[in-house]
């Protein structure tokens, strides 16, 4: 990523907002391309291949050779990579080794489910953590601030699987409010889908809100220590107005950055949460495929996860520049 940026900067491109965004998009695409080769190599270069994984240890050499030919494993590595990549960008993700079905068919619905869960969690985490962060800054060093800081610090230390099973134990087994597994199916109404995903969503919210709140608080406090805030205090602007009008406007760009980078963290967190709640999403699919050594599915899911992750990081950079255009002009 940095090579690409450095090379572009050396050419002394016209600095500005759109060139900046174009540069970041290009760098993101380059990074994704390199990662795709890393993912491919990671599953292709290591000892053992799809054929031996599929047939197991007792396979005869003849059967292995035959299957390798069928799967195209006798081709040179670079040919296989390019075939895989060009098929991938055209939407053909290959066929599962386990059941022979097209990976794209199995992934489409699951990807939707995962994005729904992540989006649901994000729609709660973002307003909640920004509110909590600002609230604790507004009442800085008061009991409220200390309580928020203490609780968020504690939440950060809790692993997702613990939160998940604790919620299942408390809300599902003891109180019987929710089902312990989140069954969703195509054609389900939005309201019942929301009810079915309340627990996994809550788990993600608890896992991430701590991080985001802490960082929002730190961003705003950092802005509050600037001279123009002191100026506003000296000229008698009420504290509330300083936080909401002066500090927030300037803290917006770091806050956006922090929020989106933590959403990227959702990508990894969602894997565990999906397994805890037996939620039919990408994460659970990928875990099953890794367990079964189903290479095409793993490659496709890993690349999709990486793409979402890099995409969110890219959005973080671009939105931060939109919120504070000065950033686009510094090298």
């Amino acid at each position, binding site marked *: 990523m*940095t090579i690409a940026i450095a090379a572009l900067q050396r050419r002394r491109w016209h600095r500005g907002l759109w060139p900046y965004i174009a540069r970041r998009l290009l760098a993101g695409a380059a990074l994704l391309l390199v*990662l795709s080769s890393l993912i491919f190599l990671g*599953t292709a270069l290591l000892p053992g291949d799809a054929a031996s994984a599929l047939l197991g240890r007792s396979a005869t050499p003849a059967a292995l050779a035959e299957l390798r030919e069928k799967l195209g494993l006798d081709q040179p590595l670079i040919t296989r990579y390019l075939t895989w990549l060009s098929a991938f960008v055209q939407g053909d993700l290959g066929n599962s080794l386990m059941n022979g079905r097209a990976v794209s068919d199995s992934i489409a619905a699951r990807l939707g489910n995962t994005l729904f869960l992540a989006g649901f969690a994000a729609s709660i985490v973002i307003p909640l953590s920004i509110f909590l962060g600002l609230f604790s800054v507004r009442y800085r060093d008061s009991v409220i601030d200390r309580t928020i800081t203490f609780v968020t610090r504690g939440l950060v230390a809790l692993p997702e699987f613990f*939160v998940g099973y*604790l919620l299942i134990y408390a809300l599902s087994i003891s109180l019987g409010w929710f089902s312990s597994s989140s069954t969703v199916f195509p054609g389900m109404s939005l309201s019942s889908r929301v009810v079915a995903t309340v627990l996994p969503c809550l788990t993600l919210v608890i896992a991430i809100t701590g991080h985001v709140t802490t960082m929002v608080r730190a961003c705003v406090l950092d802005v509050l220590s600037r001279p123009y805030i002191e100026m506003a205090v000296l000229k008698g602007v009420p504290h509330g107005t300083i936080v909401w009008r002066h500090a927030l406007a300037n803290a917006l760009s770091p806050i956006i950055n922090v929020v989106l980078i933590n959403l990227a963290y959702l990508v990894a967190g969602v*894997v565990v949460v999906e397994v805890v709640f037996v939620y039919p999403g990408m994460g659970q699919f990928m*875990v099953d495929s890794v367990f079964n050594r189903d290479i095409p599915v793993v490659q496709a899911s890993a690349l999709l996860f*990486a793409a979402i992750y890099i995409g969110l990081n890219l959005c973080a950079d671009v939105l931060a520049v939109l919120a504070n255009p000065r950033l686009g002009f510094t090298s």
Partner: protein
Amino acid sequence: MTRMFKLPVSVMLSGVAIALFIAVTALAPVLAPYGVNEIVGISWDPPSLSSPLGTDMIGRDLLSRFIWGARVTILTAAAATLLACLLGASFGILAGLRRGWPDMVLSRFVDLVMAAPTLILAMVLLTILPRSLAFIVAIMALIEATRFYRLARLIAVDTAALDFVESAYLRGEKTLWIIFREILPNGIMPILAEFGLRFIFTVLFLSTLSFLGLGVQPPLTDWGSLIKENKDGLLFGITAALLPGVAIAVLAVAVTTMVDWITAGENGGQ
């Protein structure tokens, strides 16, 4: 020595907690009432005097399994973190001192690994590699080493620019001498602090992998597989599946508090 007498309560509690974890790890054979795979009762026996946490699905004592699991989790994570630290710090310091194309290649590779979600990366590697303890340690160490590399390289680059390193070079000292006598004494605290934080992360990483069924495999057991195996026990009032989560959280808070205190003392005391 004077600092010993005004230890904050939080630091004392953290110290006790860390000592407890170390004791459980070291003394597992003495502390555990039963063997790790010893069957002592019926399926999902409720907590009793002989097995305070109850038994699991096939009647093994859960307290014993928790203690044995603590040993596997902590030792494996410590081994992976140590390996990562040695690997990352040595390459990082060398790259930071020597610069040139090896630094360029290594740093770009590290950027690349750090740009991908760690869990996804580990899962890709575990698709092909055998899921033995040695490979899991190696995979975690390799991924974690990138963090140590970045930190150590930065320290080396910063320190190498200082006058005393330059005069050491002019005196004709060898690179190794400079690393051990000039760079490391100046950079050891941040690296140790990183070690503590990375250790916690590795415990969580290992537990997550085992929970997903991709980490420690039976007959060995660790905290993550304990959660995986006993999640159904929640239905029968066996809450052992929650215990590893609590233990991880306590360990995380204790180590973080300790690291904060040590680094604050280092910065404030001078």
